[in-house]
């Protein structure tokens, strides 16, 4: 490798890492700034927002690992197991913190009251849908973690198992993304 190509290779690597770091920081700020909003429920909002965004980031990264997995390309299963476990924990935190903030959503003069008075379909359709499908990713991810551990000795040789793991990760991401977007829309309509 020439000195010039080594230099440009390094620059592109650092740029890619910088972009990933900046994107993560900005995404975290999207909800992290909730901690400073003028409301008595800023803690609940910040914790739920950050855990939801973290879960979305991890699940999105995981979806990029399922395509080589399904194609049968050799991947590092130990690493995949750890990432899926982290995503499982983050999804659990997202569901628990969602319960925490949901009581304020339903509270007196809370977002639900305002939305029902002004744009009722956003509660009757969107929120009633979001509050349930947002619970789906945690069980799906827990089942995926179980599969990756239970079948750890045979999964590199079983294409049907890797296909199923890929489908589970994709589905968890899909339900998570739907819940995330719906949550953002509702928070934009009326913050807690």
């Amino acid at each position, binding site marked *: 490798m020439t000195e010039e190509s080594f230099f440009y290779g390094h620059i592109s690597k650092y740029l890619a890492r910088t972009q990933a770091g900046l994107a993560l920081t900005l995404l975290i700020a999207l909800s992290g700034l909730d901690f400073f909003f003028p409301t*008595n429920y800023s803690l609940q909002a910040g914790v739920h927002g950050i855990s939801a965004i973290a879960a979305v980031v991890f699940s999105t990264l995981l979806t990029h690992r399922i395509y080589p997995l399904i194609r049968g390309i050799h991947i590092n299963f130990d690493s995949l197991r750890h990432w899926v476990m982290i995503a499982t924990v983050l999804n659990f935190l997202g569901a628990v913190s969602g319960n925490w903030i949901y009581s304020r959503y339903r*509270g007196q003069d809370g977002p639900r009251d305002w939305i029902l008075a002004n744009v009722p379909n956003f509660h009757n359709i969107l929120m*009633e*849908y979001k509050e349930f499908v947002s619970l*789906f990713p945690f069980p*799906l991810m827990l089942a995926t973690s*179980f599969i990756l551990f239970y079948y750890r000795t045979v999964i590199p040789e079983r294409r049907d198992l890797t*296909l199923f793991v890929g489908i589970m990760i994709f589905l968890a991401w899909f339900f998570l993304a739907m819940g995330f977007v719906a949550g953002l829309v509702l928070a934009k309509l009326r913050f807690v």
Partner: protein
Amino acid sequence: MTANEEKMTQPEPVLVSPKVPLQEGIVPSGALVAATLAPVLGFFTLMLSHHISRLSKSLDQLVHAYGHWIPGSLGSGPDGSIGSYTGKETLALAVWFISWAVFHGLWRKQELSILTWIPWFLGALLLVTLGFLHPLVDPIVLFLGSRLGLI
């Protein structure tokens, strides 16, 4: 060999094989089906308990009672409460974990076809997802509720 004889000698296609003796290096797929059927049953429980709770105040209180153990399930004022959502979550969790344990015990030594299970799994998830869309499902819920005398 006649066509009939040939047909008789061919093995019947089986989707579910009988229990296989555990061999070294073999991990039957029954545990995967158990682990992934159980959450789907939990999701259906969530959907059914949700629609049942919307039929009347007394049914909502009945569902809510299962979730009183969850912090925040009861309350009023600006802080609010999680309400009967806690009961729905509790029932779904119970069905998820109990059915997982039962099916794991039943199928862990069986080799089940994962490729056959995939379309059933996806179809069930699609069904339960549509079941939470109120404009779509409310006419069905109201029809069934009135036929069963619940409303």
